[in-house]
């Protein structure tokens, strides 16, 4: 199908690639379908584009590339909701809140998006882990590395 996107014009997407968020995400509960689109000349960040709302898109990235020792434990509610059977089915990405520069931007480590790659069911999971912040400064990591 063809999809009108916020920043990539009209693109053709395979409906099999659509991520299904049964309850949307907090703040956007009616947005049940998103697709992941590449950003030209950028490997690290991708766009999470709403299927329903052309203007709605987020930047997402792999949190394991941003922060060392990122460990999450999926609770039974998530495993159940996404029908996860094996760990290798699971993909994790985090929403980035862009500022003037990437270094000043923040990444939501507290509420990652969990995807079951076998059925493309996805959910933004709010972790109980106190170590992770909703607005984790990206530069706080790059200085370490």
């Amino acid at each position, binding site marked *: 199908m063809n999809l009108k996107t916020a920043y990539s014009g009209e693109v053709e997407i395979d409906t099999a690639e659509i991520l299904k968020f049964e309850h949307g995400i907090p703040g956007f509960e009616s947005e049940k379908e998103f697709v992941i689109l590449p950003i030209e000349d950028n490997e690290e960040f991708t766009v999470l584009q709403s299927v329903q709302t052309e203007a709605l898109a*987020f930047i997402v990235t792999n949190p394991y590339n941003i922060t060392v020792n990122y460990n999450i434990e999926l609770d039974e509610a998530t495993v159940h909701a996404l029908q996860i059977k094996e760990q290798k089915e699971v993909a994790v990405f985090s929403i*980035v809140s862009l500022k003037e520069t990437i270094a000043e931007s923040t990444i939501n480590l507290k509420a990652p998006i969990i995807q079951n790659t076998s059925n493309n069911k996805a959910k933004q999971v709010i972790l109980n882990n106190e170590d992770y912040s909703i607005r984790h400064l990206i530069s706080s990591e790059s200085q370490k590395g």
Partner: protein
Amino acid sequence: MLVLSRKAGETIWIGEDIEIIISEVKGEQVKIGISAPRSIDVIRGELRQDVSTSNTEAVLKNIDIFKSKK
């Protein structure tokens, strides 16, 4: 919204498998016990609200930042 008055020690059942118990009432604070199947998310309201606010802030406004890196 259904609003019920309860005293400490009293309970409320939601469906067949969720039990809420008012465990303690002390001044402005109420301690609530929740017994629910592990397949049900139980999240503090302000935390969910904070994630919701953060998502709203993160809505992409432009992708110039990636273009200027070229």
